[in-house]
Structure formats: C-alpha cells, structure tokens
C-alpha cells in the first residue's frame, strides 16, 4: 500500500481494466527507461483526432486548418510560440469551446456533437492539469483530490480515504493532505492537481504548461511523474509546453504550431534536425527569425520623428 508502484495502480472499483498485469505495473512504475507499449505499435486509430480545425476569436484566426492526432498510450507534445493557441487547443479537445469548422474526436466521439451529459461522461475519462493547478481554495488538499470521486462515485469513506492517500503518495504529498491550497508552493500545488487529475483513473491526461514557473527540482519531479503515469498506467498524454529540453526527454511525438497550423511534426530528434527556419528558431530559442521579435508596428524612425 505504501509503495509508489502500488500507489499508481488502479483501484479495485475501476471498471476500465487495463491490459498490463499488476506485476508489470509494479516493476515499471517510476523506474526503467523501456516502455510497456511502444506507441508506434498501437492500432492506427488515434485516441484524439483533430482534423482541419478552424477557430477564430472575433476576427483573429487562432487555428486555420489544424490537424493532429494522438495515439493511445503515447506522449504527444504541442509546442509553439506564446499566443499560438496551445491552451485553446486543449479547451477545444475538452469541448469547452467549439471550432467554427473541422472535426475533433476523442475516443471516436465527435466532441462538438455531444450534449452536456455525454460531454460530462467523456470528461470523466479525461484528466486535465491546469497551468496554475486550479485547486479549489475552500478545501484541503485531501478534499481537493477526493472531490471528483465524491461527485461521480459513491465510495465508502474508508475506501475513498485509501484511494486519495494512494494518489497523494504517488505525487509525494501524502504528508500534505491536511494543508490548504494557500499553504502550498507552486510546484506542490501542481502535484496536488496532478493527483486530482489521476484520481478518477483517466485514460487521457492533458497537461497545460506543466513546467512553467517551476524550479528545476519541481520540474524534474513533474517530468518524472508524467513519464511514470504514462508508462505504468498507459495513460495517453498530451502536453502543451514551450520547454524544449523537457519535452525532448519524454515526448513520443511533437507538433510545432505557428500561425494557426502545424508547421512541423515528428519525434523530438527529428524536429531538432529539421531544416525549417521556424523549427530551428524555436528549438534553438533565437529571439528573431520567422517568428519576429517585434510586434507589428510602423517604422521606428518615422514614429520617433513624428512629435
């Protein structure tokens, strides 16, 4: 019960059985570089499929023909300069906003066509980690993690307690169960949010900028957790991030967005060796290039001379 490996295994009440036997989960959780399932050997049917999506806010086109897919059990990274709509993409996948055209399907269901009860049923199978954690401030850490279970499953209190403590153990914060969110550091809040995101045993986890604003130690902890969850529980992960180094370490496939489209895709190694100027600028962190340093403005000298 106390071991990390057991803490990550699925609870007995889950009706979604996984293929990997318990012995495999125990031996691979948090250790070993090899993957249980190679995503390239997955079935060709993607778990998340975004096809030719167009989305605009007012007159500003955020996506114009965006297409990407995430295979089951893989870690897919979405990268791109700030303001390219990475977080908007997660909101589209979760059905919080609707695209003007195109198709987004999750588990084979078209998200835009779902009614609220069906959408909520789908969301119970998907976890999301918010950039700031988005913990409920009126509750303790324990109650935050227990919240989705209390809402969706009728579990006896001892079982619920066991489940929540297992998830908190998995993120290393069992000792912080009684703290309030205000008493947590940024990294701790994100780990609690991760425990909450996995408490319902999701099949897909969406991470919105999981590394932003974290110190190197917290970053390493989150990185390790994402990797372990993916390996041990075969959770399909979609990561939205700018952190090239971290993404390169864990992603199976990376999509680079710019100008409302995918400008490059492939493994992190493929992206690093790509010839495209946009990709090179992003991967090397060059301040100017195809993505300009300056926001569009009139001529500098002319503007200065116009008193």
């Amino acid at each position, binding site marked *: 019960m106390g071991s990390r490996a057991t803490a990550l295994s699925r609870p007995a009440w889950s009706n979604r059985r996984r293929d990997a036997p318990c012995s495999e989960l125990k031996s691979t959780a948090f250790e070993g570089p090899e993957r249980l399932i190679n995503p390239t050997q997955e079935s060709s049917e993607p778990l998340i499929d975004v096809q030719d999506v167009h989305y605009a806010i007012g007159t500003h086109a955020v996506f114009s023909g965006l297409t990407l897919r995430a295979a089951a059990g893989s870690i897919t990274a979405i990268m791109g300069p700030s303001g390219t709509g990475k977080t908007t993409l997660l909101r589209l996948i979760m059905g*919080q906003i609707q695209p003007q055209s195109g198709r987004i399907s999750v588990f084979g269901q078209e998200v835009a066509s779902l009614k*609220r009860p069906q959408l909520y049923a789908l969301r*119970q199978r*998907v976890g999301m980690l918010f950039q*700031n954690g*988005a913990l*409920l401030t009126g509750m303790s850490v324990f109650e935050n993690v227990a919240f*989705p279970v209390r*809402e969706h499953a009728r579990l006896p209190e001892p079982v619920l307690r066991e489940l929540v403590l297992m998830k908190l153990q998995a993120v290393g914060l069992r000792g912080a169960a009684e703290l309030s969110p205000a008493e947590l550091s940024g990294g701790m809040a994100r780990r609690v949010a991760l425990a909450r995101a996995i408490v319902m045993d999701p099949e897909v986890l969406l991470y919105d900028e999981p590394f932003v604003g974290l110190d190197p130690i917290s970053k390493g902890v989150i990185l390790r957790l994402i990797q372990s969850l993916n390996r041990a529980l075969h959770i399909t992960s979609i990561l939205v991030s700018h952190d090239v180094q971290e993404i390169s370490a864990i992603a199976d496939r990376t999509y680079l967005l710019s100008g409302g489209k995918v400008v490059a895709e492939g493994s992190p190694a493929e992206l690093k060796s790509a010839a495209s100027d946009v990709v090179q600028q992003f991967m090397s962190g060059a301040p100017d290039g195809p993505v300009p340093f300056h926001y569009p403005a009139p001529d500098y000298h002319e503007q200065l001379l116009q008193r």
Partner: protein
Amino acid sequence: MSAMAAPRPGIRSSLIKIGAVTRFLLRVLGQCVPALSHPHLLIEQIYNAGARSLIIIMLCGLFVGMVLGLQGYDLLARFGSESALGVAAALGLIRELGPVLTALLFAGRAGTALASEIGLMGATDQLTAMEMMAVDPVRYVVAPRFLGGVIAMPLLTGIFNCIGIYGTQLIGVVMMRIPAGTFWSQTENAVELRDIREGVIKSLVFGVACSLIAVYEGYHAEPTAEGVGLATTRTVVSSAVLILLLDYILTATFL
C-alpha cells in the same frame, strides 16, 4: 419604418442582458433541486449570507427604529397621537423599510462577497476545472449560493423588523414615556397578517433579485482583477436600482 422597428443600441443591449439573466435564472433554478444533494453546501451558504450579515443588520435595524421613533414621535405629537407611534413604526418597518433596507444592506454585504468570490473562482480557473472534472459549477457553486441568499433574506428581514421595533420602543417608551401597554397593545392590534405577508413576499422577491444579480455578475465576471472589481460594483448598483424598482411595483400591486 425599418429604422423605427430596430431598437436603439442601448435598448438592444439592455434587452440582451435581461434575456441572458433570465436564461441564467432558469439554469440556476434547474440546478436548485440537484444542489440539495449537498445540504452542507447550502447550510454553509445560509451561514455566509445570513449569520455573517447579522451584526450589520441588527445595528442598522436598531438605528432605523430609533430614528423612526424620534421622527414619528415629533410628527404624531403635533396631532396628539403619540400613542400610535408603535403602530406607525411597526407598519412602516414590516411593510416597507424592513424588506427594502435589509435588501440594500444584503446587497452591500453578502451580494458583493458572493460576486467577488465566484468571480475570483473564475479568474483562478476553479470553475473551468470543475467543468473539466464533469461537475457543473452552476450546480456546485452557484445554486447553493443563490438558495442560501433567498433563504437568508426573509430571516434577516424578520430580525431587522424586530430590532427596529425595539429601537422605536426605546425612544417612545423609555425616552418619551409613552405607556408600554398602550404602545404594545396598539401595535399588536394594528398589525395584521396581510402586512406580514406583504413584507415576507417583498423580502423573498428581493432575496431572489439580489442573489441572482450577485451570482450572475460573479459567474460572468472577466477573469481579471479589474473584471472582478467591476462585477462587484455592478452587483451593488444593479441590486439597489432593482430593489427600489421592484419595491414600487410590489407596493402598487398590494395597495
């Protein structure tokens, strides 16, 4: 003809807002019964909106009652009818001043707290997080707060009225030496059930209006510090105007 048919932008935006608030009210009402599955949330909100407003309501009720006592005594003494002070104060408080002033105080104290709390929950992604966890924030956050306000308002009004009449009695009986028996017996004889019913209906209507405006403004606040501030201000202003407007309509209906 077509130019006459098209409403002006100001009227059009007002109509859109009224429509949006009405739709939100229906959505909240639809979630009120499911929200009762969490009675602890409702009790917590009755405590927040009601018990935490008690001090301000009681203090204001006392002062309003004492002012009524002074003004009423001065006026009635001109006609030699000082003994009717209790009746005048009790009817004034129960039918009019109690519900209206309690609602105005409620909007300033509990309404702003509700709007800013929900607005901040929105600004820190807590409401979105609930949606993503397949929990409807209208059921979990909005409906208990709305119901809490609607339940708390008549209770607060009742307390305001009682303290107000006690304040009038302090002036009339203790200071001005009106016989206590006359004061209370005349009050008891004059106040009828329909007066109390009028006050209760008014306070319920004001409770719905104040709570609805507070939760609507909070839920739809821009997720920024400025947005939450503006939502709080709009809550007070809109509530005050709506309370007085509804009061006129209700009084005209009852009389």
